[in-house]
């Protein structure tokens, strides 16, 4: 019985999607930006969706659908799009006016879409950073993690210019300076105070619970997280100078 309900919901969703896509396209034609009204809609949809999570009632989707028919301004179903594989043919990435990435997309049905800005995310940032890249719509309410537009299998599927553009944005988004020299590590009041040289300049950072925040990967690399959310990487720990290695060794 529950299964049946779910199936039904999915059916509703897919019909929703096409409807939304159409709406979106017409909106895009008129103006490449979301109007302030549009962003407000999104906000409401978001609050409604968190509402859903709160009470996990399968049926709520239905009432949202019904409400949307009545008054799209109040509670609309959040649209979800089908993620498609992206390649040279259907996706053209350019540098945006704001020095970020814009996308001209050709949908499988032949329609085209323009995104003023897309967000690029790595599926395997640590183990396979240059493959399986997710291209997403920016979404203010979800800290930049909007709907997935599509996925890039390999970065090398695109020309050099585009790859450069990707890498530039990825380097910004994935900021994990390489630790080159550990000047000192002091253990005080349960926190470790580090002073180190990194590929991005000298830093001091604070870490608690070193045994869970220093992670040794299977390939020998070390990833370190500090209390502020900084991430540091030691690509080849054995190549650190012996003084530095001694300082970190006791936590491995």
């Amino acid at each position, binding site marked *: *019985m529950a299964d049946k309900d779910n199936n039904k919901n999915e059916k509703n969703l897919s019909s929703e999607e096409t409807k939304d896509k159409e709406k979106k396209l017409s909106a895009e034609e008129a103006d490449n930006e979301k109007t302030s009204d549009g962003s407000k809609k999104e906000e409401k949809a978001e609050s409604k969706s968190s*509402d859903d999570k709160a009470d996990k009632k399968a049926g709520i989707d*239905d009432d949202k659908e019904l409400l949307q028919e009545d008054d799209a301004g109040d509670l609309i179903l959040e649209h979800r799009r089908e993620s498609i594989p992206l390649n040279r043919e259907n996706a053209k990435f350019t540098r945006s006016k704001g*020095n970020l990435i814009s996308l001209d997309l050709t949908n499988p049905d032949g329609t085209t879409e323009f995104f003023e800005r897309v967000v690029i995310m790595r599926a395997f940032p640590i183990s396979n950073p240059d493959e399986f890249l997710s291209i997403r719509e920016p979404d203010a309410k979800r800290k930049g993690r909007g709907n997935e537009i599509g996925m890039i299998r390999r970065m090398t599927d695109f020309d050099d210019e585009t790859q450069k553009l990707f890498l530039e944005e990825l380097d910004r988004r*994935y*900021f*994990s300076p390489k630790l080159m020299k550990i000047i000192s590590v002091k253990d005080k009041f349960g*926190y470790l105070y580090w002073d180190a040289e990194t590929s*991005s300049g000298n830093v001091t950072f604070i870490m608690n619970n070193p045994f869970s925040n220093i992670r040794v990967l299977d390939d020998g690399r070390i990833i370190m997280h500090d209390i502020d959310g900084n991430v540091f990487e030691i690509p080849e720990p054995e190549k650190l100078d012996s003084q530095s290695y001694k300082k970190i060794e006791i936590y491995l």
Partner: protein
Amino acid sequence: MKLMYDLPADDKAAFDAAVGSDEKLMYCLPFTIYENKFVKGYMAFTNKTMYKLLEGKLLGTWPIIGSSDFKTEVMYGCCGFYAKVDGATTLICQFVSGRDLPRYAVIVKACEILNEQKDEKSPTPITNSTPERFCPVCNRPYINATTICPYCMDKKEIYKKLFAMTKGIRLMMSFPFLVAVFSVIFQFVVPYIEGQAIDKYINPSSGIHGPMSGFIAIVIAIVSIDLFQRALGVLQGRFSAIAGNKFTLMLKTVLYEKLQSLSLSSIQRRTTGDLMGRVNSDTSVMQGFVTNQLPTYFIQIVTFFISLPVLAFMNWKMCLFIFVPIPLVVLITSKVWDFVRNRNRKLWVLSTRTGYLLHDILNGIRVVKGFGMEEYEIERFKESSIKSSNQSESNAKVFDTIFPLLGLLIRIGSYFILLYGYMMIFRGKMELGFLHQINSYANMVYAPLMYITFIPRNISNFLTSASKVFEILEEEPDVQDIGLPLDISIEGEIDVKNITFGYESYNPVLENVSVRIEPGEMIGIVGHSGSGKSTLINLIMRLYDVNEGAIMIDDVNIKDISQTALRSQMGVVLQETFLFSGTVQDNIRYSKPFATEEEVIRAARAANAHDFIINLPEGYNTLVGEKGYSMSGGERQRIAIARAIIHDPKILILDEATASLDTETEKLIQDALTKLVKNRTTLAIAHRLSTLRNADKLLVLDHGRVAEFGTHSELLALKGIYWKLVMAQRKMSQDVERTQAEKHSEKQTAAAAAK
């Protein structure tokens, strides 16, 4: 939270050169990452423009007015602050997540507000009361979940407060110090007497042994000193046990009382684990320090500092022999302890990992079995166990080598003394007894050195614990009774007058809400999450104080009513029912501990709980809660309702009391509630509108405002939000019926086909 940092001089100059005369600096925040390098730059926000400043250079300006979509994005290892300027999304600056993300989140809101108030002549910056997580003085992190900086706290203040708390047990607590003084004296006297015994009676250098009676007197003296010392030790043990326990008891009680008196918001700011830690372990650390460690350190330190002049007086050359190696010994001991601690920590980590793994696997045993991964999990566990057992073995080996060596090191002074002493004795310049005496003193000097490396750590642990405890003790509750609070008995009329409230000042959850509820009415509160339903109820219960407006109960402002009187006349049934460990009976009469059996049964009957309780093997005496009988959601809920009934409250609050139950149970509970709400003012929040069918009036909240208020039929006639909700739920139940019918007919066709 600090939103206005001071600009360094060079940045300030660059800013002043660029800023317009009609602009006012509103906020100034640091940014820490620029072009993939760590930097220390500043973002200055005026009422019109943002300026990005780094090392005296202006890196860029962007308008605030006219820009849109301000937002922060959390990335990997950093965060970004974005805005849409001239239709182009732009990365304004990048910064470290932990420290500045909350600040920029406020700035996002602030920029939106600036855009709204662009015509305002003198805009005022918004403020934010979220506490900082970092010490503003030294920029180091506060102790978890506190606002205490271990580096900057006033240590003298803590000792003073602690001393004030020892009132009444000071005499008992000073006893260990008295014993310490005696023990130090005896430590010096005994070797002296022994030395005398050797020189005069056992092995006199003159060859003439003293009279036997003198020797016996010395033996008696040594024995009686020993006896006296042991007796003192027994007394000290007893006294410190009594004083220590009294101290902890008092500390725990005071702390717990204070915790109960704190408002909900201060409790919810902290985790349960943190608060439990403060009541249990931090008070124990304080007790241990005051009653055990402090006297020990006292003895060690006094011994050390007395033996120094005594030795110098006796023989300054030997004194030098003893003291010269001390720095070396201290250095090596502290290194050894560091080494030992690290190894122990490693072992601890490995064994906790094994523990986690076991916990994980046992919890997910159904998954493991379901996928047939038993072999894999056995391997994984074996691997982890082997690692920790190897570490344990190697630790044991290393420690068994190190500690004897350390013992050797600590006796190093004795070796020097013996060497020098024997040389002197051979030359006839020293007596044997004198050597014995000095050697004993040398050992006394070295013994405290073992402790010295521990002292700073233990003191800092103690100070941390003490400051955590005092932080709670000194906190002012947000919601406080007035000087002479009223103890009124409530009729049940609630008048909410124009209230505005937000957990953050700039982000009101409720705005200008006014509702008048007559005594005995049942009001259903409807609206989607985040519309302020629960907040309204929290305010009526006065778990928080309103920012503006007033809530009147029977024409008395609830701020004037004592909190105890107010809440004792309110009953609450929440969605998540909490049953305390204890019997069913205890749980029902929680708010009225002396309720009779009749009352308990009557309440249980009214809650439709009596029948299922009777069917439990131990009836009303069945244990529930963590260790006892586990009840279903519906059963718990009915006990909670009984708990509310027995209390006979004038105002009843039902916060989604039936949301998580199936329809049949809901029916039972509905019936119970119908009985319960009679003659009481009732406020009920519900997602399922059927729950509210008995409500006299319905209050529809939308984004913190009253959207609709009236009876069921009035609101239906309005065709507004309520109408839509009703229609939606009706359609939903029809859909459910339809699918059920379809399923049924499918089955029938299938059956027919089979035939």
